[in-house]
């Protein structure tokens, strides 16, 4: 399907300097940027499950609301991979890749990706496209792909859910008033850092964090982030 009965509408877009308003005829084909197309494949049988591919150029221009209406409401379709499943897979693959990799650059990059992934909330894509969006190196992308149970999961599309992702892969960071920043995976933080309360002479209470390990990397950074 790529054509529909002609229908008119108004497209209003905010641009620098004002609001651009366009009256559209044959709305789905008027502009290549509003192009929508769907193809579904299956056996000619009532019992079959039809899988499809949908192209909706409005996803980039007006956000996901228009395509949610088009794909979910109009076509009564949804991504084959649920948001929860896709986001969980992504988090699991990052965590496993970080554990298995002996490359410190990859480990650090994955920690950065885990922190930055919050900006992907509700966007649609695949694990591969999300890694590309977050500027992952080839080494990191290869490590994450290898950590997946099956290679074909790398390119499957889903809607990213930050709430699910964070539950599966969360780095905990504590910043102290002396400038120290302590970072570890949330599930391991309490094992990595031992915390004791220290009573000050002035009656105040502070926390002492202790940890022990071999230095595998250290960086000088231009910013604290």
């Amino acid at each position: 399907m790529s054509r529909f009965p002609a229908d008119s509408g108004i497209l209003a877009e905010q641009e620098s300097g004002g609001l651009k308003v366009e009256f559209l005829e044959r709305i789905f084909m008027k502009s290549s940027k509003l192009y929508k197309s769907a193809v579904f494949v299956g056996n000619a049988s009532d019992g079959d499950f039809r899988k499809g591919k949908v192209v909706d150029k409005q996803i980039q221009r007006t956000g996901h609301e228009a395509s949610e209406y088009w794909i979910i409401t109009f076509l009564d379709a949804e991504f084959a991979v649920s948001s929860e499943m896709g986001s969980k897979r992504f988090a699991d693959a990052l965590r496993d890749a970080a554990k298995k990799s002996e490359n410190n650059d990859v480990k650090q990059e994955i920690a950065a990706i885990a922190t930055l992934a919050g900006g992907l909330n509700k966007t649609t894509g695949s694990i591969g496209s999300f890694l590309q969006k977050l500027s992952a190196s080839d080494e990191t992308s290869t490590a994450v792909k290898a950590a997946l149970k099956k290679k074909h999961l790398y390119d499957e599309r889903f809607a990213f859910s930050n709430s699910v992702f964070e539950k599966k892969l969360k780095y905990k960071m504590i910043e102290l008033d002396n400038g120290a920043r302590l970072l570890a995976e949330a599930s391991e933080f309490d094992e990595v850092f031992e915390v004791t309360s220290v009573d000050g002479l002035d009656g105040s209470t502070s926390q002492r964090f202790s940890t022990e390990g071999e230095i595998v990397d250290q960086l000088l950074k231009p910013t604290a982030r």
Partner: protein
Amino acid sequence: MTAQDKFATLRENYLGSMAHELETHITELLAEESVPRIDRVSARAKEVDSFVRKSQKTNGDGSQKYSNPLVEIQDQIGARVTVFFQSDVELVTELLVNRYFRSIEYVDKIPDTDWEFGYFGRHFILALPTDVMPESYEDIDGLPQFFELQIKTLFQHAWSEANHDLGYKRPDAKEPEQMKRRLAFASAQAWGADRIFEELHSEIRD
């Protein structure tokens, strides 16, 4: 190649391992979400003779029920989760059916009337997760796209398993009507036990 022969080949080459992976996949999902009171997770590929029998079923007018059995028979792979209490059925349903998997069809299997007792269980047809599909699965002709998930309490499962075993011997039963009544009685007791345990569980939880 007949549909039955094709199924036998697919079962040998793919379906057995897919069922095994599905069992692991569901077990891990439930464990990661710390879902309590799971008695057992199991999955299996349908036996060939069971597929053959089902594919040969006819409608009331004598016509073939399945014109394309490899597509239309949706429980070629089946999974079952047995839980302790009725409220746990809801928990597992919410997690697996509403969040992680894609639901195609849902049937709450209950007796036809409120006066009857028999099989109880919640059956879902879900899309097979690609996590358990073999590599290059899109190139494999005839691979099923669904699986059947049953979510039952221990009592529901116990009754259905015993009833299923007796089913093969039922044609030889001396008093089939009495047998039916006694099976219904056993089902009613299982139903009652489920209710009492759920009430006790709720009272203790509160």
